[in-house]
């Protein structure tokens, strides 16, 4: 690098990597959507559960993982690699790392596509992949991060454009979420138990799950929108100021909203409250992104008529606005009581995935392909046709899921006028009533897939007409002193950051201090906000000047972004992990699984039962009437992983244990329709022939013990004997009921587990939630411990 002011250099962008990621995204997108159509068919035609490895419970994770990580993942990388190089005026820092990133990611996808149908899973949604693949994902993500930040460091454009802010937030936040939620202890090369259990696991999982949506499916795509949409419409972005406000508020608030997946459950009340209200406060920041996208088109609305790329972008941004309005709505506890576990949520995520992600991807690919191959789009008419069948497909899909979800939700929650009995006591009656809607979903999804395949054909024809081209450009090399000069002192010790932290500290004091002090802290926070706004008005020039200089410094910007995204998780997770532990449980505590029951539970996880069955009875009368007493926090405290579930295609199983005879489960697993007429559950004939895994029990119990589950000390033989004794007893009981099962078969272990569900002990000694003798800041105290929200036995 030279210090001469006007030195110029010619750079060639690495567009080969962009092309590769784009092709991979198209390929995996088609696979993921095909899997989606297939599992939608399975829900209506249970006969399509053709084999154990083709059953719904194993294929649904394949569908979700393929669409999120393979389709959107590769699309995101294509968009990031293309735009980051141009925004940095630099080639990607290392071709080697780009290659490792691309091939590593594809290998991970292949590994996922093999292991998931085999039933190798961690049993957490969107975090199903087994631990060796988790390690690979973390490493490859690290490669991406190094390559990206190294390119930032070498950039020939001092100022970071808003698209890069979103990429930075994506990379650091996904790394944080992914690593924390995948912490587990292996029991073998293909199996592990999660570090967290029960309520802690639930909180961490949905901190991850919700923010996978936020930071894998939203922020990178917003970054892509900020680069490619103004490019396509050739108009300036609507508002820089809006970019700043909505970026920082989005990344800060999103992280807190995870508990909205656990409303009305055994999750402590303060977390439910935070989840709901942060979701509502997220509405405006999300719409800031939509406004900046839509209003950029001001003065160029005519392009919407002529340019298919613009059509796709604008429809995508509109769907983004719709989903981010629906999200806060679904987070209201009263709405959630109806919508949760129902198809409404499925419709909601598909409005986002098909509408926002899918249409953005299409717009991106239609725009990129002619540029990357030096040709013209093969057929604008095909692209327009794709646009219409995709849009109609989404609308059919989403509308049918609305109707289905709201109808089934209303039926499941309906009680008679006195509130003393369910109106629709038979779960299957509610399932049958939504069959037609599930059929419309298949039509909508198939239309969308057809449009996607037409796009693939159109792009292939476009590629054939041209040749891969690498764009070269002459750029001015910038002075060393023109960028990246800000130190940590200047990063943190300035008015905007200092006021933010002080305000945040007061807000936290309001949330966490005991009664009396909390209101005082709130008043202080209010008073302080007035001062801050006054200071901001006076020092506006200085504040925005500082921000402009921050944009010339990638590392301080990244550090501040990390602080913003880390806070919400820390504040929710750390108190929960330290306080909500087995030793602090007050009313009910789960009975530890016997070795056989543990083997059965691993089968339950492996078959993906949690995809359709919850194990969480909410604090709602219809739930209690239908499934039994509401679930307490302590009743899943030893569950590694927790299996609270997120969708009830079938009924809740939290209190299934002891409700039916063994023979009922036997018949039901062999042919669900023999005991439940009209059920759409797959049959599980292989459970009756395959043996359950006895060998690994020793290691599994050793890991469970390390994780704090109070197993008595047992030798390998004792474990095996105990498992077999219980198995023989169940087999004999089955025989007395006229059913034949070998004691070492999987069905026996599964029945043992199912009969254990909902079994708890009541601790004899009265426990205190918090230890004494330590002053407040050191003593872990949850907001709930001061208030009348702790769930207690009457």
């Amino acid at each position: 690098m030279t210090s001469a002011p006007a030195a110029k250099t010619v750079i060639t962008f690495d567009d080969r990597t962009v092309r590769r990621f784009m092709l991979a995204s198209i390929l995996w997108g088609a696979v993921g959507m095909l899997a989606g159509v297939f599992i939608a068919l399975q829900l209506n035609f249970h006969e399509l559960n053709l084999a154990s490895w083709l059953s719904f419970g194993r294929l649904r994770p394949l569908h979700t993982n393929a669409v999120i990580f393979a389709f959107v993942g590769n699309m995101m990388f294509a968009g990031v690699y293309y735009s980051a190089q141009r925004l940095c005026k630099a080639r990607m820092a290392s071709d080697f790392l780009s290659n490792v990133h691309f091939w590593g990611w594809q290998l991970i996808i292949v590994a996922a596509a093999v292991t998931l149908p085999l039933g190798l899973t961690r049993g957490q949604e969107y975090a199903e992949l087994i631990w060796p693949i988790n390690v690979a994902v973390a490493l490859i993500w690290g490669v991406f991060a190094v390559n990206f930040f190294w390119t930032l460091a070498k950039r020939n454009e001092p100022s970071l454009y808003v698209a890069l802010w979103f990429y930075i937030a994506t990379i650091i936040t996904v790394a944080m979420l992914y690593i924390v939620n995948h912490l587990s202890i292996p029991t073998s090369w293909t199996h592990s138990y999660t570090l967290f259990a029960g309520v802690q696991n639930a909180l961490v999982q949905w901190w991850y799950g919700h923010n996978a949506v936020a930071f894998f499916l939203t922020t990178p795509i917003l970054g892509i929108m900020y680069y490619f949409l103004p490019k396509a419409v050739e108009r300036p972005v609507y508002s820089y100021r809006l970019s700043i406000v909505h970026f920082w508020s989005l990344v800060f608030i999103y992280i807190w909203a995870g508990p909205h997946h656990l409303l009305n459950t055994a999750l402590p009340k303060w977390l439910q409250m935070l989840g709901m209200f942060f979701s509502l406060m997220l509405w405006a920041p999300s719409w800031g992104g939509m406004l900046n996208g839509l209003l950029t088109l001001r003065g160029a609305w005519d392009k919407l008529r002529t340019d298919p790329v613009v059509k796709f972008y604008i429809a995508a941004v509109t769907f983004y606005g719709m989903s981010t309005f629906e999200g806060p709505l679904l987070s209201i506890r009263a709405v959630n009581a109806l919508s949760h576990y129902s198809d409404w949520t499925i419709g909601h995520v598909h409005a986002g995935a098909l509408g926002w992600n899918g249409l953005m991807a299409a717009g991106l690919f239609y725009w990129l392909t002619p540029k990357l191959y030096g040709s013209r789009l093969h057929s604008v008419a095909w692209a327009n046709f794709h646009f219409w069948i995709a849009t109609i497909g989404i609308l059919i899909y989403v509308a049918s899921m609305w109707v289905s979800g709201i109808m089934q939700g209303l039926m499941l929650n309906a009680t008679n006028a006195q509130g003393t009995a369910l109106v629709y006591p038979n779960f299957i009656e509610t399932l049958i009533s939504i069959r037609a809607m599930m059929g419309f979903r298949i039509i909508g999804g198939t239309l969308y897939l057809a449009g996607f395949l037409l796009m693939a054909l159109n792009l292939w024809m476009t590629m054939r007409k041209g040749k891969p081209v690498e764009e070269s450009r002459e750029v001015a090399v910038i002075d060393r002193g023109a960028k990246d000069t800000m130190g940590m002192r200047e990063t943190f010790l300035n008015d905007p950051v200092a006021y933010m932290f002080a305000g945040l500290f007061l807000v936290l004091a309001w949330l966490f201090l005991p009664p009396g002090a909390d209101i005082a802290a709130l008043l202080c926070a209010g008073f302080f906000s007035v001062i801050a706004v006054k200071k901001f008005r006076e020092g506006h020039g200085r504040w925005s000047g500082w921000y402009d200089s921050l944009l010339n410094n990638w590392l301080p910007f990244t550090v501040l972004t990390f602080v913003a995204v880390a806070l919400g998780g820390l504040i929710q997770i750390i108190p929960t992990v330290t306080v909500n532990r087995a030793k602090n449980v007050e009313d009910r505590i789960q009975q530890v699984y016997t070795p056989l029951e543990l083997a059965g539970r691993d089968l339950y996880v492996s078959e993906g039962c949690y995809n359709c069955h919850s194990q969480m009875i909410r604090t709602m009368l219809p739930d209690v009437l239908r499934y039994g007493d509401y679930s307490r926090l302590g009743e899943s405290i030893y569950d590694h992983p927790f299996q609270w579930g997120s969708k009830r295609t079938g009924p809740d199983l939290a209190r299934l244990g002891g409700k039916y005879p063994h023979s009922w489960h036997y018949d039901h697993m062999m042919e669900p329709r023999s005991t439940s007429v009209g059920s759409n559950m797959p049959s599980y004939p292989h459970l009756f022939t395959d043996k359950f895994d006895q060998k690994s029990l020793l290691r599994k119990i050793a890991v469970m013990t390390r994780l704090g589950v109070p197993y008595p000390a047992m030798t390998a033989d004792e474990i095996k004997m105990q498992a077999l004794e219980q198995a023989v007893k169940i087999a004999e009981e089955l025989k007395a009921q006229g059913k034949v099962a070998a004691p070492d078969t999987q069905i026996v272990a599964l029945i043992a587990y199912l009969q254990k569900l909902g079994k708890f002990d009541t601790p004899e000694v009265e426990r205190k939630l918090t230890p004494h003798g330590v002053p407040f800041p050191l003593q872990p105290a949850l907001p709930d411990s001061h208030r009348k929200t702790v769930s207690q036995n009457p």
Partner: protein
Amino acid sequence: MSAKNQPDNGPVLREHVYDGIQEYDQKLPNWWLFTWYITIVWFVIAWVAYYQLGRGDSDVETIQKAIAAVEEHRNKELAALDDDKLWAMSLDPKVVDAGKATYSTTCVACHAPDLSAHLAGAKLPGLPLNDTEWKHGASPTQILKIVRKGAPDLTKGMPPWEPQLGIQRVVEVTAFLLSHHKKGEAFTLAADSPLKAAP
């Protein structure tokens, strides 16, 4: 927000160009800002009122009250029932039809549409209900109790149906079963009846 350097006739276009992209610096839309402020204010009000000051019932209190109401209703209904009343209901076609409707969705999988617990020659998991051999007692209140609470050992027999069906449907189903029998008919206890062991 300050409007420094902003001409009256249009938004400020920022000078910096990023790979051909420029940015306006429009003011934040007021309606957008106000929706945001409203959600923030609502958070503060709700947290203080419902959580910190404890206005209204907590979730646990709400659900406990609802459960208590269901139990009270059930106890009232049960107190008004005895063998004679149930026999009388079994002669009321309206009650029997309602019971049949519930039976045909909830009970047929184990007890068969004709109550024989056999379907096409195959034995179903349930016990026959159309003969005169009873396992848990033949009196209307004994039958009602089994339908309500299930078998004494649930892992070997019938599940409890009262929570899911509600007391009214359970009574109706009992009336439907009784409509296949006559008051005072002779019955035997099954060989494995838990009632036999009792003195």
